[in-house]
């Protein structure tokens, strides 16, 4: 019996605007109108400032843990720009730029990290999901949301973000399998920033690309320069068309780098080479976008000054809104999970006591919760 090749594949890498500002006109011309590039640059700058302020809020005790986004803004922003406003945007926690573009009010992310549940209360008409901190859960949510959209005959798709580390978890493989086998309109975007906290990608993925992890599920897979806004817009657009028109998922590996620590509880200097960080600082998506604007004479020093001033104003107003929100009530911890609160939680809500804290609520149960027997 002769040996024959039954399957062959290759992974393409897409890059349009490189770190030196070199622009591939063949791929990129007309992709984003100039006035939109300006807007995206401004948005990205504001998000960068937001990120720095958020970091300092944590350090001065005004906020809990915070994961810095610095350096990874282009991946989610390019996606948000390429999607429609009523497409699902299902993120983890390093997609602030995309979330804000997609319509999430900026104070929500601060509220979340300040430990206020209302940060995760997504406003009506905003198709974002709460920040997903446990690694991997949101990819399954995206598959489910896409399935529901397809089932209801809606035209929306779901675009989900996760890190390189998440692709080593079962959740990713389950979500990918579901999406591919049920023909669901999902765009999987892996932000490969080389580090799953302190674990380098190369020791948890033996394949040369993370992108090829999607091949096993029969999905089109592509690798893209995740710090290149133009390339991101292109690959997301292609994937969105495939999802919307053909109900087929796509797997995108966006190669990027976080310039800060994993979170404010981390010190990346303990495991990353300074040289590596320096190299990636030069690949900052903000720098190359500025080079592009300069090249096309779309930007001036004066505009930059004005932008920085207004970034400060915007962010300080956002911080003020987040900090001056009315204090949450204790009921908050009960109110956001169940549409109808189960009886045992109703007892806890009325007594503010739990068994688990060693406080037996039984003396109060008879009087205050007679109609709600515990199970």
């Amino acid at each position, binding site marked *: 019996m002769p040996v024959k090749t039954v399957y062959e594949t290759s992974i393409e890498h897409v890059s349009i605007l490189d770190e030196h500002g070199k622009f591939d006109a063949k791929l990129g011309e007309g992709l984003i109108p100039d006035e939109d590039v300006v807007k995206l640059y401004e948005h990205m700058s504001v998000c960068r400032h937001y990120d720095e302020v958020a970091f300092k809020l944590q350090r001065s005790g005004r906020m*809990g843990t915070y994961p810095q986004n610095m350096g990874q803004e282009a991946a989610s922003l390019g996606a948000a720009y390429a999607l429609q406003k009523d497409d699902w945007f299902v993120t983890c926690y390093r997609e602030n730029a995309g979330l804000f573009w997609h319509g999430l009010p900026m104070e929500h992310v601060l509220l979340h990290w300040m430990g206020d549940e209302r940060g995760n209360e997504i406003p009506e008409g905003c198709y974002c999901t709460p920040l997903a901190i446990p690694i991997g859960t949101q990819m399954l949510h995206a598959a489910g949301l896409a399935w529901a959209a397809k089932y209801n005959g809606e035209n929306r798709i779901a675009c989900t973000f996760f890190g390189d580390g998440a692709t080593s978890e079962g959740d990713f493989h389950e979500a990918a399998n579901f999406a591919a086998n049920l023909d669901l309109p999902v765009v999987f975007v892996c932000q490969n920033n080389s580090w799953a906290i302190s674990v380098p990608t190369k020791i948890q993925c033996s394949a040369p690309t993370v992108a090829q992890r999607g091949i096993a599920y029969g999905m089109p897979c592509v690798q893209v320069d995740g710090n290149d806004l133009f390339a991101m817009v292109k690959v997301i657009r292609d994937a969105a068309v495939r999802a919307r028109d053909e109900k087929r998922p796509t797997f995108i590996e966006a190669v990027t780098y976080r310039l800060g620590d994993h979170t404010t509880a981390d010190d990346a200097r*303990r495991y990353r080479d300074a040289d590596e960080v320096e190299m990636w600082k030069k690949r900052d998506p903000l720098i190359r976008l500025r080079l592009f604007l300069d090249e096309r004479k779309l930007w001036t020093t004066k505009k930059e000054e004005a932008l920085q001033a207004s970034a400060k104003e915007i962010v300080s107003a956002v911080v003020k809104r987040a900090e001056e929100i009315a204090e949450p009530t204790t009921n908050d911890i009960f109110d956001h999970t169940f549409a109808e609160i189960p009886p045992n939680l109703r007892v806890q809500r009325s007594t503010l006591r739990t068994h688990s804290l060693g406080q037996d609520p039984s003396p109060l149960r008879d009087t205050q919760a007679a109609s709600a027997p515990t199970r």
Partner: protein
Amino acid sequence: MAIKQPADKSHFILPDLGEGVHEAELIRWRVTPGETVEEHQVIAEMETDKALVEVPSPWAGTIAKLNGNEGDVLVVGSILVEYGTGSKAGAASPPKAAKNASITAKAAEANGEREDAGTVVGSVDATLRVSDAFTRRRHDPATATRTGKALATPSVRRIARERGVDINAVAGTGRGGRVTASDVLAFTGDGNAVATPGRTAAAIPSPPPAPVTLSADGIAERIPFRGVRRKIANALDRSVKTAVHFTVVDEADVTALEAKRAEYGRVLGRKISLLPFVMTAVCRALRIHPSLNANVDDEQAEILIKGVINLGCAVDTEHGLMVPVIDEADTLSLLQLADSVGEVARSCRNRTIDRERLVGGTFTISNVGSYGGMFATPIINYPEVAILAAGRAAERVLTKNGMFYAGVILPLSLSCDHRVVDGAEGARFLNTVVKLLEDPETLLGD
């Protein structure tokens, strides 16, 4: 969890700088009392057990008081900085606060240039540049000249030398800041201008000082206990004050073992140090004498005999002594031990070792002999109860059955906590280790 700061902005409470951090060491103040700071301006550098971090001011204001000295360990929740009336006034009521905030925003805009520089390409450079200006201490004139070499004529230098005065510490009043003879005399109290009684002692002729730059009290450098050095100091202090140390020493004839080690080297094509052999012997001996494989719980007044053997290995690093632990060392082969030792030593030296790997030891080995020395009185890695130091293996003339022969001995020093280990048991344990090292067939046999 974020800490609730006072609404009147009168003081800044040290927050949790990471996640579940309870204390932090103050490395450096970056502001001085009386200084006006902007919101987000870095006021201090602090080190938690996870990272060295910059602590920014949560609001704009005037610094009234800094609580804590550099090197102090401050507890989360304590007051770090007190602010003066400058910020208090604006924050009392919400409408005023709003007004204050907008003023602050304006001020920030006015100062936009230096902050903006960091906004586009990452904050680090700009922040450091701004704050560097604040780190420079105001020197008083007397110490200001100490940083550089003093200008003075040879005759003035001789006068200073004769009086045992460091001329670099004397403030010069002469032309271009030159130190004059009367400056030196005034400094020692000899001059007419300043006659401080307390200083006259310095005028007593003293032997010529060594030709190095020393301050008057002869101290070249004052180094506060910080970081790893502080941890080492605290741990050793606790051990010596708690455990009752006794040390027993012996020599093992490792002539045969050395031959075996050379053979291993030839077969494997790489050198194996003596340490993994000693570790193997210690694991075997601990199985026979389990009372040395223990921890002490002084709070509960209990001896905890350990079922697993986790061997600590003292590692010398440029930051100081570290003791990584090799878990379940008795389950590892000789070569696995050799590899583990190499790996943990490396990660100690480049400081990538996890905290978890620095705790949980049941017995510690120090191979101080790789640096030199014969016997030692090693300090127990508390709450362990025993530690073995291996000295430098050396060639000796030995005797056996009335015959001389050239052999290699390995000096061994065992310290035990006498509260837990009796002298006889310590000696028996050491004897077992020696016997095993002298009989490589048994040591490596099974």
